[in-house]
C-alpha cells in the first residue's frame, strides 16, 4: 500500500457517490410529493450525524453516545435566530413584553437574556452553529483524550452529558422553551420557510451540504490522517510509540463529527420548523449510533443510507404498528451487533460485490476488451477499499 499511489477516488467510489447523488437529487424529488420529500429531508439531516459517527466510531474507535448534544446545539442556534426573527414587536404586541420570544413572556421573563442577543445577527448565527458545538466538543475531547480516557468510559460520560443538557434545557423553561422546545418558526431573513416551495428548496440545500460533508469525510479518510485514525483504533499504543500525539487526532476527529452533527441539526430546524430537547437526549443520541451501525460503521455512504432507512422504517412502523417499533428497533440493535457488524455496507461487500465481480469478469471476455480495471471497479465500492486497508486489524480485533 505504501508504494502504490493512492487515488483520491477509485472508480467504484465515484459510482457510489453518483448513485447516491442521483437518488438524493433526482429520484426522491421526482417520486415524492412535497410532504414526503420534506420527511426524507429530515431523515437526511440524521445522515450528517451518521457520517460524523463513521469518522469518530468506525474510523477512530471513539463511540460517542452524545452526538445528539451537538445536533441539538446546532439546531438550537438556528432556532434561536429564527425565533428572534419571528418575535418582532409587531408580531408579539399582545404580550406583556413585546419583542421577546413568546415562551419567555409566558414564563415571566421580561428582557431578552444577554446570550440571546448575538443571535439577532445572521452571520453570527451561522458562525455559532459550527463554533458552539465544535468548541464544546473540543473541551470534552481535550479533557478526556489527553487523559487517555476512551472506550466505554467515554461513551458513558458523553451519555451523561446528553442527559445533563436535556435536563438543563427542560428545567430552564423561561430561557430555552422547556420541553416544548423552540416552536413557531416562520421566516429566514424575510423568506418564509413554511410553504412547500421553500421546503423543496431547503431539501436541495440540505442535499448539497450533505455532499459537502461526505466529501470532507472522504478526504479525511483518504489522507494520512485517516489512516492514522484507523491505526489508533486498532493499536493505539503502537501509534503513540511511533511518536504521534494520539490525543490531538482524536480531538480533531471528534470536533469534525460534532461540526457535522451541528450542520444536520441546523438543517433539521429549518426543514421541520422546531427544535426540542426530546430530539437530543439519551435515547435519540443512541439511536443516531444505530443509524451509523445499520449503514455500516466503516462506510460514509452506507451511513447516509442507514440514517434514511432506519428513520423511514420508524415512520412506517409507527404509523401502522406502533407496538412493534420498539421490538424492531431492539432487534436491530442486537442483530447489527451479533449478525452483521459491518451493516449494509458489509452485506454489500460480502454478497453483492462477489456477484458484481463475477459479472465484471464475464463482460470483458464477451467484448474482448482488455480494460478490466475500470470494470472490476465495483469491487471497491462503498468503503470497500477502506475496509480492505483496515482488514488486518479491525475485522480480526472486533469479530
Amino acid at each position, binding site marked *: 500500500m505504501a508504494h502504490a499511489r493512492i487515488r483520491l477516488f477509485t472508480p467504484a467510489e465515484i459510482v457510489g457517490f453518483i448513485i447516491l447523488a442521483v437518488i438524493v437529487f433526482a429520484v426522491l424529488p421526482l417520486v415524492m410529493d412535497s410532504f414526503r420529500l420534506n420527511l426524507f429531508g429530515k431523515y437526511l439531516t440524521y445522515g450528517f450525524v451518521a457520517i460524523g459517527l463513521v469518522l469518530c*466510531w468506525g474510523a477512530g474507535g471513539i*463511540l460517542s*453516545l452524545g452526538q445528539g448534544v451537538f445536533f441539538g446545539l446546532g439546531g438550537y442556534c438556528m432556532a434561536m435566530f429564527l425565533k428572534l426573527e419571528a418575535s418582532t414587536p409587531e408580531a408579539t404586541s399582545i404580550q406583556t413584553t413585546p419583542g421577546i420570544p413568546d415562551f419567555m413572556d409566558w414564563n415571566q421573563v421580561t428582557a431578552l437574556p444577554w446570550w440571546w442577543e448575538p443571535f439577532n445577527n445572521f452571520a453570527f448565527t451561522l458562525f455559532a452553529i459550527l463554533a458552539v458545538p465544535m468548541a464544546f466538543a473540543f473541551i*470534552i475531547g481535550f*479533557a*478526556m483524550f489527553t*487523559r*487517555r*480516557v476512551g*472506550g*466505554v*468510559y467515554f*461513551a*458513558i*460520560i458523553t*451519555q*451523561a*452529558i446528553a*442527559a*445533563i443538557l436535556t*435536563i*438543563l434545557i*427542560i*428545567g430552564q423553561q423561561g430561557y430555552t422553551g422547556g420541553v416544548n422546545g423552540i416552536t413557531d418558526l416562520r421566516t429566514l431573513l424575510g423568506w418564509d420557510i413554511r410553504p412547500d416551495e421553500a421546503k423543496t428548496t431547503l431539501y436541495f440545500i440540505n442535499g448539497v451540504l450533505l455532499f459537502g460533508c461526505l466529501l470532507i469525510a472522504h478526504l479525511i479518510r483518504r489522507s494520512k490522517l485517516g489512516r492514522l485514525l484507523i491505526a489508533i483504533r486498532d493499536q493505539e499504543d503502537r501509534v503513540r510509540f511511533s511518536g504521534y500525539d494520539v490525543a490531538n487526532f482524536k480531538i480533531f476527529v471528534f470536533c469534525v463529527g460534532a461540526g457535522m452533527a451541528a450542520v444536520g441539526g441546523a438543517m433539521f430546524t429549518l426543514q421541520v420548523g422546531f427544535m426540542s430537547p426530546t430530539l437530543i437526549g*439519551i*435515547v435519540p443520541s*443512541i439511536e443516531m*449510533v*444505530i443509524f451509523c*451501525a445499520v449503514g455500516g460503521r466503516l462506510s460514509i455512504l452506507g451511513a447516509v443510507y442507514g440514517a434514511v432507512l432506519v428513520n423511514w422504517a420508524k415512520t412506517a412502523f409507527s404509523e401502522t404498528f406502533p*407496538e412493534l417499533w*420498539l*421490538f424492531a*428497533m*431492539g*432487534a*436491530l*440493535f*442486537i442483530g*447489527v*451487533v*451479533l449478525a452483521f*457488524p459491518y451493516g449494509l455496507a458489509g452485506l454489500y461487500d460480502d454478497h453483492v460485490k462477489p456477484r458484481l465481480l463475477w459479472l465484471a469478469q464475464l463482460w470483458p471476455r464477451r467484448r474482448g476488451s482488455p480494460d478490466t480495471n475500470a470494470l472490476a471497479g465495483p469491487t471497491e465500492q462503498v468503503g470497500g477499499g477502506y475496509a480492505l486497508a483496515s482488514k488486518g486489524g479491525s475485522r480480526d*480485533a*472486533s469479530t
Partner: protein
Amino acid sequence: MFDGFTMGELGAIFAMQGFAGLILFSVFVLMALGLAIIFGQMGVINMAHGEFLILGAYVTYLCAQFFEAFLPNLYGIYFFVAMALAFCVAGAFGMLVEWGLIRHLYRRPLDTLLATWGLSLILQQTYRSVFGAREVGVTIPEWMLGSLQLTDLIEVPINGIFVMTLTTVIAGLVAFMMFRSGWGRRVRAVVQDRTMAGAVGINTEMTDRMTFGIGCGIAGVAGSAFTMIGSTGPTAGQLYIVDTFLVVVFGGAGSLFGTIASAFTISQAQSVLEFFLSGSMAKVLTLLTVVGILMLRPQGLFTLKIRK
C-alpha cells in the same frame, strides 16, 4: 439562601433532606451494586440493567396481587417472598441473557453496550404490552406505613427506614460473598488474570455466567425494594441508568466500597441541593460536578490495581 430560617429549622431541614438523600442513596446503592459487580468485575456494560430492576418490581407487584387474592392473612410478609422470587427470576433471566448474548461479545465492550440497549428496548415494550403503559403500585403492608417522630420538627417515614435496612443487609451480603465465599474468590481471580485463573482450573465461563446472574438478581431485589417507595412503569428503569453508571464510574470500577461512597456523595449532594434549587438544577449541578471530577480523575475515587 438561608434567609428566614432559624437555626433549629435549618438543622431540621438538613436532617430531613439528609434522610431523603439516604433513601435515594439506598436506591442508588441497590442498583449500583449489581452494576458494579457486572461492570467492575466483568467489564461488561449492561444498559438493560434498569429493565432487570423493573423486572424485579413487576415480580413483586404480581406477588402482591397473588397474596391479596389468595393469602390475605399473610399479606404482611409477602414482601420477603417477593424479594426472593425477584432475585431468582431476574438472576435466571440474567444468566439466560449472558448465555444468549453477552458471551459472544466479551471482547467488544462498545458492541455489548449497543446490544444490551437493544435488549432494554425489547424488554420495555414487553412490559408495556403485558402490564400496560400505566404505572402500577403495590399496597404497602400496614406495618410499613406511617412515620417515626424523632423530634418536633424531624420525622422519618418507616418504609424509608425499611429500604435502608434492606440496603445495608444486601450490601453486607454482597461484600461477604465477594470476599469470603468460593464464588467471590473465583470472581476476583478471573478479574485479576483470566488466563491464569483458567490455568489453575477455574471454570471462567461458568464464573462469568454466575457473576452476571447474581448482578442481575441484585437488580431484581433492588426493583423489589423500589416498589416500597414508588410506583413501577415500563420505562422507569431508563430514568436511573445514567445516574447509576455515573455512580459506578465515579466510585472507581471494580471497587465495591468506592461504589457505596460515591452513591452516598452523589445522593446527598443532590438531595440537599434540591431543597434550595429546583429539582432539575440540583440534578444538573450534581451530574456536572461528577462529570467534571471524572474528567480530572478518570479512574474514579477508588481504584483497584489489576493486571490487564
